[in-house]
Structures are given as C-alpha cells and as structure tokens.
C-alpha cells in the first residue's frame, strides 16, 4: 500500500512539474564589445558592439555596423538595436507548416526578443520565399514589422510583388 502511494506521488509530481522552456542561444560577434549599466533601468545593462557586428540566434541572423543589446534586471536580453547597413536573414514556419525565408536590408532594425518580433525601418528592401511552394514576395517599405513565431507581417508605405511559379497546364486528352 505504501509503495503504491509512493509511486502515485511520484507520478503526480512528474505530471505537476511545469514543462521546461526551450533554451535559446544568442551569439554576438564584433571587434569591440562594451558593457555598461543601463541608466534607464536599475539593474539593467547595455551591451554595445561596434566595428561590424553579427548577431545569430536560431531564428535570425542580423549584420550591422553597430548594435546595442538591452538586458533586463532578470538578466535576459530584451531587445537588440542594429544601426547602419543592416542585413537580416531569418526564417519562420507558418501555422500550416510552410517555411518562409526572409532576406532584408534596411538602415535600422530592432529585434524585440521577448515578442519575437523584428521592426525594420529606413529604406526597407526584402524578399520572402516560401520554400515548399516557391512563392516569392519582393517588398519595399518605409517600415516593416515581422513576427518570427507568427504568420504575421505589417508593412507601412509598402510595395509588394508576389511571384508564383506557373502551374503546369492540365493535360488535354
């Protein structure tokens, strides 16, 4: 009886344990990386990288002349601000499992890490390709919002061109 109780308790404990959150690795490369306290956030930090910077995560790769990373007091990266000659390569999956690959350039970009959202501004030019069906969107805009974990994008003052592969003509009998 006691054994049964112990086993049941163990099972309950396992079931009650919250699922472990996914780990994300962020890597930043630059000739110069500086750290200073964030004057606006008590306990927060600012990491400034300059001289040609590359930021890589599992979702996105950003290159820029300089970047500033805001770190909250709980020691998590909150946002990355990239300035000058920004080049972005990213990918995401839509709800129906289609993989979209994005290549974009702009003057400034902010990567809001807690929201998994990219905000691009200043002469935004980009291409989004749907890998499975070979659809391509060519886009240009003043400002673009791109959600990395949602099938969602918002463009301001934009021009979008969709190119779809030609469907093979039905066979005539």
């Amino acid at each position: 009886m006691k054994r049964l109780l112990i086993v049941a308790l163990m099972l309950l404990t396992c079931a009650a344990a919250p699922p472990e959150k996914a780990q994300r690795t962020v890597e930043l490369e630059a000739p110069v990386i500086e750290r200073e306290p964030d004057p606006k956030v008590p306990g927060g930090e600012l990491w400034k990288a300059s001289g040609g910077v590359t930021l890589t995560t599992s979702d996105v790769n950003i290159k820029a002349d300089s970047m500033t990373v805001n770190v909250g007091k709980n020691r998590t990266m909150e946002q990355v601000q990239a300035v000058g000659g920004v080049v972005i390569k990213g990918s995401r999956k839509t709800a129906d499992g289609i993989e979209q690959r994005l290549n974009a350039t702009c003057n400034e970009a902010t990567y809001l890490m807690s929201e998994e959202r990219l905000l691009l501004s200043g002469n935004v030019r980009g291409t989004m390709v749907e890998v499975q069906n070979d659809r391509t969107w060519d886009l240009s805009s003043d400002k673009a919002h791109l959600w990395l974990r949602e099938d969602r994008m918002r463009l301001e003052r934009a021009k979008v061109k969709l190119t779809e592969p030609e469907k093979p003509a039905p066979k005539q009998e």
Partner: protein
Amino acid sequence: MFRRVALAALPLLIAGCAGGRLGEKTAQEKREAARVARERRADRFAPVRLRQENLKSTLSDEEGRPIWEATSKLIEVEEKTKTGRLEGARFIFYDNGKPALEARAPLVTANYKEKTVQLRGGVEGISLTGGYGFRAKEAEWEYEKKQVRASGGVTLWREEWRVVGDELTGDTALNRVRLVGKPARLMVTQKSK
C-alpha cells in the same frame, strides 16, 4: 741631582707618550666614524630584501582607507624598487575604501610606490559588486586610473553569459568593461518564449 731630574722627567715622559697615543686614537676614531657614516649612507640605497611566508598585507591611502589587501604563500619585498614579488597570491582591490575586485594569480608583482599590481600565470578575478568574473593569462591593476586590464584569452562571465576576447579593460568593479578581439564574442543561453 741627576736622579731627581730623571724622576721628575719620567712622569712627564709618560704623560707625553700617553698624550701622543691619545691624539692618534682620536684620528683613528674619526676615520672609523667617517667609514661608518659612508656605509650607512650606502646602506640607505642598498637593496634590502624581506622574505616572508604566509603573509597578509594591506596597503592604505593617506586617509587610512585600504587600497589593496594581499595574502600570499610567499612574498619578497625589495625596498629599493618598492616592489613585492608574491607567489600564490590573492588580492582584494578596493574602490573608495570598498572591496571591488578579488583576483588570484600564481605570480604577482606589486609596486607599493606606483600602486600597481601585475598578475601573471593565469589570472582569475571576480567583481565583488557586480557579479562578473574574468579569466585571462595576465592582468594589471592601476590605483591611479582605477582600472583593470587583462590580456591573453580573456573570458568575462556571469551565469550563462560568456564574452571572450583578446583584451579586457574595465573599472575595478567591472561595472564598465570593454573587450577587444578578432572578433570578440558574446554568447548567452537563455530561456525563450
């Protein structure tokens, strides 16, 4: 008559001889005193070496606030150059009288006049205020600049944060740091949404 004269002359002769010897001794003493003074002057600038084991020492500023506190297995102090050579040393560097950085190294040279410390042979340091630590081949701390510099395979770390580079410059408590590398690399593993 001759006897009387001889008897009278004898004490005079003795006194004269003695007086001569006395005069000669004074000159010798003067020479000796000059030699001792010369040696003392020379001694003042001669290297004096102190060697002590398992020593704890503290260097303080004019107001009595500690500048650093050092413990080591062995210390050799050279008075002429005001330097100490320490082996197996642990230093606590102070900033405005408050402990700011703890650093350990197998070999350390501390200059008590310039108030600089050079750590070699694999340095480990940890900020006593900000929680960041670093590892490097060598490091240097300067009291006047309140600055720490480390070089050679530098790693700055805190929890899951790692920054690697060739050179690190920062304030004593590592609140502000600058890493230079080819490239310098920051790596963080954190929980995502």
